[in-house]
């Protein structure tokens, strides 16, 4: 009797294990999980690996508030590479070089995926340039660029964390002082 009970218990445990294993196979990997949280687009651009706190900044740079196509924004997603990250999917939009340069300033690890027919056609890793032309506003109120119509220019002193120097007033600015034009 006791033996029967034991084998029944064993059987139940085995079944449990089986279910567990099945579940393990059914659990999507990180990528798939993310896809569930943010819907796919047929044509457009996906910007991935944005630092979580820069996600809305990127949306602002791309003026997504006024974009007429589909826009999906997700933040605080888990990322092995950068800890917590954000993703933005923009339907029906391809980025200009100037927009990619601007993104590189606030999200130096971002990747830009160009989507066609639900497929990634091209994957571009953004790159912080050595010179930033007319993208950033100088934080120095008495800099000539804030007082006369002049295109700003900054030299990148350090890429991570970003430190830049104004070509005109020679003032250095850290990541937190950077304001995109």
């Amino acid at each position, binding site marked *: 009797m006791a033996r029967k009970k034991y084998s029944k218990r064993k059987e139940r445990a085995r079944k449990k294990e089986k279910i567990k294993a099945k579940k393990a196979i059914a659990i999507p990997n990180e990528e798939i999980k993310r896809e569930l949280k943010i819907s796919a687009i047929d044509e457009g651009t996906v910007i991935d690996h944005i630092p979580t706190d820069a996600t809305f900044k990127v949306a602002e740079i791309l003026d997504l508030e006024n974009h007429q196509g589909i826009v999906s924004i997700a933040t605080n997603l888990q990322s092995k590479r950068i800890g917590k990250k954000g993703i933005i999917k923009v339907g029906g939009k391809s980025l200009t070089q100037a927009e990619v340069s601007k993104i590189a300033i606030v999200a130096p690890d971002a990747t830009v995926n160009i989507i066609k027919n639900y497929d990634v056609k091209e994957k571009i890793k953004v790159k912080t340039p050595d010179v930033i032309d007319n993208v950033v506003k100088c934080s*120095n109120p008495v800099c000539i660029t804030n007082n*006369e119509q*002049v295109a700003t220019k900054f030299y990148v002193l350090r890429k991570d964390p970003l430190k830049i120097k104004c070509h005109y007033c020679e003032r250095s600015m850290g990541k937190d002082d950077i304001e995109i034009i």
Partner: protein
Amino acid sequence: MDFKNKDVISINDFSKEELLHILKVARQMEQKPKGNLLKGKILATLFFEPSTRTRLSFTSAMEQLSGEVIGFSNANTTSIQKGESLWDTLKMTEQYADVIVIRHPLEGSARLAAEAASIPVINGGDGSNQHPTQTLLDLYTIQKVKGRLENLHIGFVGDLKYGRTVHSLVIALSHFNPTFYFIAPDELQIPENYLDELFRKKIKYFKTSDLNRFGKEIDILYVTRIQKERFPDPLEYEKFKGVYRIDNEFLQHAKKDMKIMHPLPRIDEIDKSVDSTQHAAYFEQAANGIPVRKALLALVLGKAK
């Protein structure tokens, strides 16, 4: 070394060799003056804010070399009052002169002026940013009174936070293996980014608020005025005004051949009694503005090599 048509905007633009070359030409200007060197050349002085020494010494340097000077020292009497941009002012001036000296309260204005004008532009001070001709005459003075620039112990005292002369001189002297002593209250100490730069270049420095602490070590003591105009709150200024005073009692504890420099004007940082001692080098320093500015004018106009 060819300086023809070169702009003089920031001390950061010059290598050690270029700095030494300018000082060499300045020495030639002082020792063997050539009265007609800049005959037929015109200097435009565009002074958008007041200046005594810089404008007068540029005018004097140009006239001593038989050049002519046009310009203004008060922007209120010009088209700027009507809203003319700096860019347009420069585009207009380059038609009337061979070289331009500009002083402007906005930082980076001299760099913009140099981009607008096709003739050489010399920065006579752009706000708190750069004043390269002051730095060059400071280097010239140090070389003259000490016989060298290498391996000197240099103290800076006063407003090291806002003082642009201090910042530029620290950068320029960094080429010559100095030891620096930064003497100031914590609130007016040298900004961290300069210390980072010194650390990167492996240059030794000390920071203190005690004027007497390194008296025996210092070869050159560079004194600066606590600048009232830099303090948003007048009470803050009152707190620091007169905090350091160089007088005969201080000098008793200094090296016998220690020299005192000051970009002037002074308020009360250096007692008048110091003027007659062998330590005072600040009036000689002001006089050195002439050979240095002569050298720069002649070099950028292609009249000296």
